[in-house]
């Protein structure tokens, strides 16, 4: 089978081209610049547009324009750039325009550094812009998935007429792995709502302003219905040895790769540990996690942010089981040995806690 060794950032661009994306508007930033560079190299070869914008603010509004004109379009950046794009993402969602945005996360807040972090979770998954909207968020953990999930992102963006964000980190973006080149092309669907400068589309209007409160409420209700549909149909996740696991470790992106190695080592030591990886961060696989609370004694969330992902896990677990948190921030990715140590510790602690809880229940009973 033919494979190509490439960086995650480059694979996302290949996926985009195969999905029929024909324009990229972006602004350089480490560690996402390879996306713009690959787009500059490849898009003109397939009749597409690459334009280096004057800022991330301009880039996201160019994406807004291309999407309004019915073109599959994208941009990419890292945390500081995504902060600047939030206004535009809100407008895209409000005007119901499909677009794909890749966020290759780095350290923050402020200028932070360029090493991998996952601290954009809140701003991306919860929606960093103003207003009642959601973005679908996909979290690849390999170079192959950078390609495949970017392709999927365009399909979802069109299906829901909503921005979709591919949320990854500096390691997944920068690392190289073999990619099996996809054998299918995605054909962009018809977009009768677009404004393309033709007689048929002359009556069309792309806007997010609804001056009348009743009309805006109806518009938001319509968006909510769309998001409810996505929440039922778009959830994606990966489970690894969770069937009999007493401790379930949860992480996404690069963390899930290191966790997998740690879980394997823990299993070799006889610990009943499994790995759960959310692939969609919104919609979040809450139901799947809550189901696992039936048999798992405890959860361990590992993230490169200070307690962002864990909030969603705790909402899903709903106090049924303890949810432990282990974080590294500042651009440090934990090693498998480090995570194995955490798994051992939490496994041990969990037994202690379980007996404490029984004591408490006993006391309450008295």
């Amino acid at each position, binding site marked *: 089978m033919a494979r*190509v060794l490439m960086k995650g950032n480059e694979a996302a661009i290949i996926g985009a081209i195969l999905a029929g994306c024909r324009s990229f508007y972006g602004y350089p930033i480490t560690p996402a610049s390879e996306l713009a560079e690959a787009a500059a190299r490849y898009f003109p070869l*397939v009749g597409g547009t690459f*334009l280096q*914008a004057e800022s991330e603010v301009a880039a996201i509004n160019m994406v807004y324009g291309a999407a309004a004109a019915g073109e599959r379009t994208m941009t990419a950046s890292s945390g500081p750039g995504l902060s600047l794009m939030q206004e535009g993402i809100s407008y895209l969602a409000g005007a119901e325009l499909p677009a794909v945005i890749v966020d290759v996360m780095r350290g923050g807040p402020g200028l932070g550094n360029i090493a991998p972090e996952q601290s954009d979770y809140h701003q991306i998954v919860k929606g960093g812009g103003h207003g009642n909207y959601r973005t679908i968020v996909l979290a690849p953990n390999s170079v192959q998935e950078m390609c495949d999930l970017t392709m999927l992102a365009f399909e979802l963006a069109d299906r829901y007429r909503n921005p979709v964000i591919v949320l990854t980190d500096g390691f997944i973006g920068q690392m190289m792995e073999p990619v099996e080149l996809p054998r299918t092309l995605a054909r962009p669907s018809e977009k009768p709502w677009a404004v393309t400068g033709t007689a048929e589309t002359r009556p069309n209007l792309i806007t997010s302003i609804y001056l009348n409160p009743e009309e805006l409420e109806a518009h938001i209700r319509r968006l909510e219905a769309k998001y409810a549909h996505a929440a039922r149909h778009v959830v994606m996740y990966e489970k690894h040895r969770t069937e009999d696991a007493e401790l379930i470790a949860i992480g996404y992106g690069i963390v899930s790769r290191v966790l997998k190695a740690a879980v394997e080592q823990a299993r070799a030591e006889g610990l009943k540990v499994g790995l759960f990886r959310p692939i969609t961060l919104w919609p979040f696989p809450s139901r799947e996690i809550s189901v696992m609370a039936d048999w798992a004694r405890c959860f361990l969330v590992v993230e490169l942010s200070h307690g962002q992902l864990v909030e969603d896990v705790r909402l899903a677990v709903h106090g049924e089981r303890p949810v432990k948190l282990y974080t590294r921030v500042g651009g440090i990715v934990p090693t498998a040995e480090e995570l194995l140590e955490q798994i051992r510790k939490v496994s041990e602690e969990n037994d202690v806690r379980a007996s404490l809880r029984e004591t408490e229940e006993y006391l309450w009973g008295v």
Partner: protein
Amino acid sequence: MYVRAYGKPKSIYGVFERKPGDPRTTHYCPGCGHGNVHKYIAEAIDDFGIQDRTILISPVGCAVFAYYYFDVGNVQAAHGRAPAVATAIKRARPDSIVISYQGDGDLAAIGGNEILHAANRGENITVFFINNAIYGMTGGQMAPTTLPGQITTTTPMGRAPEREGFPLRVSELLASLEGPTYIERVALFDNKSRMRARKAIRKAIQVQLEGRGFSLVEILSPCPTGWGMTPAQACEWIQKEMLRYFPLGVFKDVSATRPPVHTAASREAMPLPSVASPEDIFALLGLEGVESVSPPLMRETEIPARYRNPRIKVAGFGGQGVLFLGRLLAEAGMRQGYHVSWLPSYGPEMRGGTAHCHVTISTEPIASPLVSRPSVLIAMNQPSLERFEPEVIPGGLILYDSSLISTRPRRTDVETLPVPATQIADQLGGAKAANMVALGAYLGLTKVLPAESVIVTLERMVENRSLLELNVKSLQAGLDYVSAR
């Protein structure tokens, strides 16, 4: 019998169905300039016969509702961003006629960057810039074009240049750029000036129609409500006050000499419509997949057990080619059908830094690409050896460039292989190829990958013939060094 010689332009809706309230009147105040400008634009669209092709981008400001009136394709943009939106629409739809309609706050304050760069790129779009020296819709605050001394709700004592700066002369500013084709400032205060505005608006659209690039018309426009004047007083104020600061005239016009840009034809010549399969796209992109030798060959007979499924760290100075060495290993490993991963240390592009990468070659799918406990360390300088030596697993291998590293590894529980890589490469004609000597020695010792496969990969990765020759020679020298040991 009579002929109707004067009427509503076709590109303005007969009834304003999108507008709440009375669908026969506009939402603009009496004496406001927007009505005139809307009409002139619509007349030009009618006369050029481009109603179906026109896409109007409305701003944030009173003209946010321009789509109530214009019977053309309509897109509403975020505050100040219309030139960015217009840029992408025009590039996506080169046949369309894209008009950005903006006020002074929108264009000259919050959207200053977008207009500057769209103009500088010479985007083939048309911008109509309404300068009424005030924020009208939000209730009369100071605009970047507010005149010195002018009272607004945020300059209650009048605009003081020492405090609020001077009014921006946008036309003059943009005319200083190479990019734009046509820039003119007009005004609406009497019939003569209005006819001049009408003509300029028509010309700006024509420039785009001919594909000659960026055109902008700045229109000094009355805002009687914002200014607290009657419509007649407002016209007088433009003539007496605004003209003193904002002179009328053509500031740039190279439409006669500028060749057409961004034409529809140039885009249609691109291969997009004919592309049918992924293979066609890969061919266009120059992407060539590597067919792997299968099944994987890491058998006991060929590779000593302790060298199998290596987790490798390669480290050295930036410029020693350690990232390349790692990539070559990963590429060649992929060619042999293995699972591989390559993870670089990445940082600001600075000279003299250290670089390292993590490489895994495995018969099994790779969980973590992060090599925290390497089974192999290839150290090309002293700091790298010192830093990563403790990480190597017991029984692992440390291969180091003994030309540059004088102190031996302290570890006694690992295998060590000193290779005078820099010295050997230097004798072959380039110390830069020391990385290939080290790689050759690693392959010679461990047999992890066949040398031929690495050389085939090298041929794919290195285009420069003499550099390729040096690399292959150095690789061979590394292999020989180990076998002669």
